[in-house]
């Protein structure tokens, strides 16, 4: 079950913006939380003034594999690290999708765009009370860039083929030197957790970094800069985080955040079980809901409120196997790959798919049909000129005819599509067996294409073996998957669009781009990666979207809304369409009344 949900998350493998995380902590008793002193430059957040205390419980659909931000690649680990334990130098605000100061109170970019000078906040402390200075930043970058560490964020820190050079000006100021301009600019720093040098330098020098921060590490050995720090980890059951008394944000009245005393993650692998727990009041927040469960919960809401935050960044799509047939390719598949490589065939399939029906029947209307990878939830990057053609079987038939396909009368009197060799056109679609939504999409597409005379078989497959077929053995015909970008910026999806990318699903990890349009996309993506201004980058990425729409390597289907729920007693609850949907402002969440804290 967990993998299925994971499949929603594009970057199962090492796609760029794996949010790095932060750390966990827990020094033994330090007495009363220190009061904000004049030497500290706390970040003041707008928003409702909350009350101290309380505990929020949320479900996590799988046990996090690690809490180490360097190696966290799975969604649950990221959710914990990103939602509660991490802090970065510059942060992307999940609500506005824009960057804002975090650990760095300000930054300057040089005129040539190659040099970033960041000034740290004064008086920063890790959650164990140790002060933070420029050496921690230097150490973090040294570790992340070390090949032996295999940090998930390493690729991201190599700009223009060279690692970012980091230099310390003084204890509060750090200079980052890039080899090439970087289009996404300071977004680079989002999600890059600052590591505690005082805890990790020795193990790193001894080459024991991997062993030093594991789930078995006691709470006292962790330290981070996020709003919460590790209190207790019970394998298979729960993860308890407690308030970080040294956190560097305050509310408008000057009280140090976070408000909550504890944040508890329960490991509940089954989506339905998560719904039941939320319904019974055992958990306080719920996110990543399917539309059906959302409407079940909406029907009986009383002590909680369900809300639809609008379309997220997840895009679901159908894609065909566009790999070069090799010697090992079964002849049957090689024959079908000839159709798949015909662009008119793909356009025809796209024209025949009823996207509105997918939104209505799969998402109960809580979603948006898609004709490109940029969802309506992404405010800045969508190309408005991409056509949104209505479903048209006539157009599909015309395209197929142009591509040399014809129709014969099948055994039961229905028309059947045949190719130029008079072989009937049929193919199978892989879907993840535990993802009911995508299997439903496949069933609708099956019926859509039946009207074209194309026979489709649906093959629900275990998620891991599906990924293996798509990226390794490459023995499949078509497949439905979904990806979620971590950031609205197109750089986040470089791995999908670059022909050399591991997530370039229809033909991954190519040595040279197989087609002219893939070569053009490669060029555009590299240009925009280094692009000087938003307007210029947008132009290039618009062209990428046009190329995708023309060539249909992915037939985009639909994007679900982000559906969440929270107890009425929780204040400052503002779900975002970026991950982590409900916990992105965990430090500001609070209970409006004491009774909200009483649980059965």
């Amino acid at each position, binding site marked *: 079950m967990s993998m299925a949900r994971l499949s929603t998350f594009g970057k199962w493998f090492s796609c760029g913006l794996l949010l790095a995380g932060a750390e966990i902590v827990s020094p033994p008793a330090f007495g009363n939380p220190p009061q904000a002193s004049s030497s500290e430059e706390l970040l003041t957040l707008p928003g409702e003034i909350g009350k101290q205390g309380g505990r929020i419980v949320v479900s996590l659909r799988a046990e996090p594999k690690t809490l180490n931000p360097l190696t966290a690649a799975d969604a649950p680990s990221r959710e914990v690290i990103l939602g509660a334990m991490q802090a970065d130098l510059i942060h992307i605000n999940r609500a506005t999708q824009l960057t804002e100061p975090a650990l760095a109170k300000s930054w300057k970019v040089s005129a040539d765009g190659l040099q970033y000078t960041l000034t740290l906040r004064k008086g920063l402390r890790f959650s164990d009370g140790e002060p933070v200075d420029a050496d921690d930043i230097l150490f973090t970058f040294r570790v992340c860039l070390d090949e032996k560490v295999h940090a998930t964020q390493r690729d991201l820190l190599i700009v223009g083929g060279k690692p970012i050079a980091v230099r310390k000006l003084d204890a509060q100021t750090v200079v980052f030197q890039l080899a090439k301009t970087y289009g996404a600019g300071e977004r680079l720093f989002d999600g890059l957790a600052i590591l505690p040098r005082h805890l990790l330098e020795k193990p790193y020098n001894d080459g024991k970094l991997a062993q030093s921060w594991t789930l078995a590490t006691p709470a006292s050995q962790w330290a981070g800069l996020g709003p919460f720090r590790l209190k207790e980890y019970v394998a298979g059951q729960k993860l308890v985080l407690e308030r970080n008394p040294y956190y560097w944000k305050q509310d408008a009245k000057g009280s140090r955040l976070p408000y909550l005393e504890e944040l508890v993650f329960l490991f509940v692998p089954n989506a339905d079980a998560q719904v039941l727990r939320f319904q019974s009041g055992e958990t306080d927040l719920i996110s990543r809901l399917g539309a059906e469960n959302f409407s079940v919960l909406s029907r009986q809401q009383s002590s909680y409120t369900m809300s639809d935050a609008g379309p997220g960044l997840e895009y679901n799509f159908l894609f065909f196997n566009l790999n070069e047939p090799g010697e090992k390719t079964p002849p049957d598949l090689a024959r079908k790959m000839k159709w798949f490589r015909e662009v008119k065939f793909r356009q025809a399939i796209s024209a025949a798919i009823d996207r509105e029906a997918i939104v209505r029947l799969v998402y109960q209307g809580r979603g948006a049909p898609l004709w490109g990878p940029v969802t309506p939830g992404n405010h800045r990057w969508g190309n408005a000129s991409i056509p949104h053609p209505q479903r048209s079987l006539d157009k599909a038939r015309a395209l197929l005819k142009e591509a040399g396909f014809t129709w014969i009368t099948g055994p039961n009197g229905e028309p059947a599509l045949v190719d130029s060799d008079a072989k009937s056109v049929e193919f199978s679609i892989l879907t993840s067996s535990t993802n009911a939504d995508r299997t439903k999409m496949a069933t*609708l597409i099956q019926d859509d294409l039946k009207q074209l005379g194309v026979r489709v078989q649906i093959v629900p497959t275990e998620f891991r073996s599906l990924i293996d077929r798509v990226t390794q053995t490459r023995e499949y015909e078509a497949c439905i998957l979904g990806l979620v970008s971590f950031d609205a910026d197109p750089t986040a999806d470089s791995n999908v669009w670059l022909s050399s990318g591991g997530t370039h699903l229809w033909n991954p990890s190519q040595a040279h781009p197989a087609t002219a349009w893939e070569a053009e996309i490669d060029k555009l993506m590299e240009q925009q990666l280094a692009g000087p201004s938003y307007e210029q980058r947008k132009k290039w990425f618009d062209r990428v979207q046009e190329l995708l729409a023309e060539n249909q390597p992915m037939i985009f289907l639909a994007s679900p809304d982000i559906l969440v729920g929270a107890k009425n007693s929780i204040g400052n609850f503002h779900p975002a369409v970026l991950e982590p949907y409900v916990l992105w402002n965990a430090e500001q969440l609070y209970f409006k009344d004491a009774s909200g804290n009483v649980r059965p």
Partner: protein
Amino acid sequence: MIPPRGWKRWFVALVVLHGIIGCAGFFAPYDPAEQDRERPYVPPMRIHMMDIAGHFHFRPFFYAVQLRAGSFDQFEERADQVLPLQFLVSGARYRLLGLVPSRLHFFGASGSRIYLLGSDAYGRDQLSRILLGGQISLLAGLLGAGLTLFLGVLIGAAAGFYGGWRDGLLMRVAELFVALPWLYLLLALRAFLPLSVSPLRAFFLIIVVVGAVGWARPARLVRGVVLSAKERDYVRAARGFGAKNNYLLQRHILPQTASVILTQAAILVPQFVLAEMTLSFLGLGVPEPVASWGSLLASLQQYSVLVSYWWMYMPALAIVPFFLGYLGLASALQEDAGAGKIEKVTSGGRW
């Protein structure tokens, strides 16, 4: 006419039930795969005799339904669109008993579709799916049971009749099969099969898999009967007169096993229907859009369906009369066998 008694009564009931499923295409109003995307999860529609104005109609009728504005699964009746129930109407193409092409349906309505048992997530008619899904499930049960009994009789008779090391070997293998956790075996077996199989191939795979696993129990029962039968005086006498093994088996010994086989058949068929349902429920049976009772129930794995759409439970009710029929038949057969009635019938060679 003499009223049917004992096992015959059950048998007649089963023939009627199977007849309905066999002619499912006729009784089902629609093509089971046809989607009505405007009407997902329509609850069973109400049959009216009185219209809103209070007038009585001799011909029962329905009101067409439409989605309530702003809702996904709440429907309301449209008083302005009356759909009279019609009998023997022309509709979707099907093959009666899988052979005769026809378009004639027992009932239907013109103008809009009617859903006697509601519709599923894609707006497919649940009644049609239950009826046609029954064909898959029952046929899988019948053919699977046939295959099992064939294997069981063959192996059981061989073991019992020839005895010695052959008996030992076959019965040890049988014990192995009895001890196997068959569900996991089925899952493992299915996993080895090719990735994408057409519905027809998937169907026969299920039958072979289901049939090949269950032979041990009937084989042991048959062996027991054969063991005792071959020591009977008349068998010895026949052997004394020079009868060959084949003749002995056919003429004297196998007829003795008839009651066991019949009882076993009546027990095995529902068991194998259930096996098919289990596989389909787990997504290992016939693929979409073909229905079987198991795959119809599979949607209940989702909590939201479980609590929202009660008519999705209907396929579970459909199997009840069949199971009652088969179990009734099995126990009646057993009683009759005890009273020696079966032997009378079977010795006439009529079974």
